[in-house]
């Protein structure tokens, strides 16, 4: 099911029909139509659409003359790519070593409680996607998490409630 490549109906997210494949062509052209830049192209597509859908990848394979298996191996190997639409807001909890010894596991439970999904999942209303990351590089703030571009240091349950409420 996770490899069906189709937008699940219940989510009401972007339908594949609405995808502007022109944008995909543009991104490919920006990188000179070079299959060596495949990972860079996928990064730009992920950033643009918030996921890598099947029609988009098919177009990519067509343009660059690469097998579908290669595109999907890349899409499933790297953590940054998603085969399902991501939420509007990203929440990532740092599980780096320094944060771990300062209690990152407990923070993660609090966040899971507050948002209602496990790490790696997106809320049904597509508001949040929760993920874990292996070092944000601000160890002095540990245990730390990011909500979009903001860093939050060791929020308690109440602070987390506020954060959830404050985002659209």
């Amino acid at each position: 099911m996770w490899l069906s490549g189709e937008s699940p109906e219940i989510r009401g997210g972007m339908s594949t029909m609405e995808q502007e494949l022109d944008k995909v062509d543009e991104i490919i052209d920006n990188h000179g139509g070079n299959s060596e830049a495949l990972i860079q192209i996928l990064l730009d597509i992920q950033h643009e659409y918030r996921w890598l859908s099947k029609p988009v990848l098919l177009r990519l394979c067509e343009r660059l003359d690469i097998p579908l298996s290669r595109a999907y191996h890349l899409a499933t190997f790297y953590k940054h790519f998603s085969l399902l639409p991501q939420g509007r807001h990203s929440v990532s909890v740092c599980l780096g070593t320094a944060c771990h010894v300062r209690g990152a596991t407990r923070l993660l439970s609090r966040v899971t409680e507050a948002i209602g999904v496990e790490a790696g999942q997106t809320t049904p209303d597509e508001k949040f996607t929760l993920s874990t990351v292996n070092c944000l590089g601000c160890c002095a703030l540990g245990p730390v998490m990011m909500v979009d571009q903001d860093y939050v240091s060791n929020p308690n349950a109440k602070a987390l409630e506020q954060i959830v409420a404050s985002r659209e």
Partner: protein
Amino acid sequence: MTTERRKDSGARRTRVAVGSAGAEARTRPAARPAEVAGLVTLTINGQTVEATEGMTLLEAARSADIYIPTLCHHEQLSNYGACRLCSVEVLRGRRSRVVASCIYPVEEGIEVQTESERIAKHRKIMLELILTRWPWVSEDLLEKYGVQRGRFQERTSFCFLCGLCVRYCAEVKKADVLGFVGRGTERQVVIYPEKALEACPTCDGGKMGCRSVCPTGTIPNEFAHTGPRFGKKLPLAYPVRSYDEDNVRDVLHTVGDWRMPWVRGQARPSG
């Protein structure tokens, strides 16, 4: 006759670079100067072996009828070096290291041990790990290394990702019907049904080449005829790991003897 053939495969080998990981074979670095493909002398298990430059330790060993167990190796396919069962000990000067013989190139003057205590110990535990995925590892092999079942919990999935099917489809058939997805323990082989429908019915006279290289018989035999199976809506990809015992037994009977011996712990017959 045999030795010549082995040397030929050595010469053929130079076109495919050692250690290529992907579906496409990579060309070797720029051509060497005029004295190409010299002879290399090394010892394997105390026996002197003459090999051609560019051969791997595995090929050199086989040319001297010395047995090394392998799982992910296949003559027609690029060397993959993933199962590590073919690991051997190489002594060069005073330095000893463990390398994968299917990829390590022969070197003048090295001493290779294929069954040292260190290697036997490692193979034993590797086989125990393989058993967690695939219970039908040949009994001869298990007995040879004194493997006891049961130390590790079974996580039977039949496929242990040797990559032979993926490489076969990509390099020999150039169809890319099969591919890897995921990473780490989530890594698996999948089939892309849309591509399968195009390519599989005519592959190897309808017999599906990937099934003939698969050591565990995991690839479902109905795959070439997927259309009716899946109905109108084809999934994008379908994992190859099956838990269907009938399917596996079916393959073990129909695949034919030439595939099985090296899994049962004997050297591949030449020819």
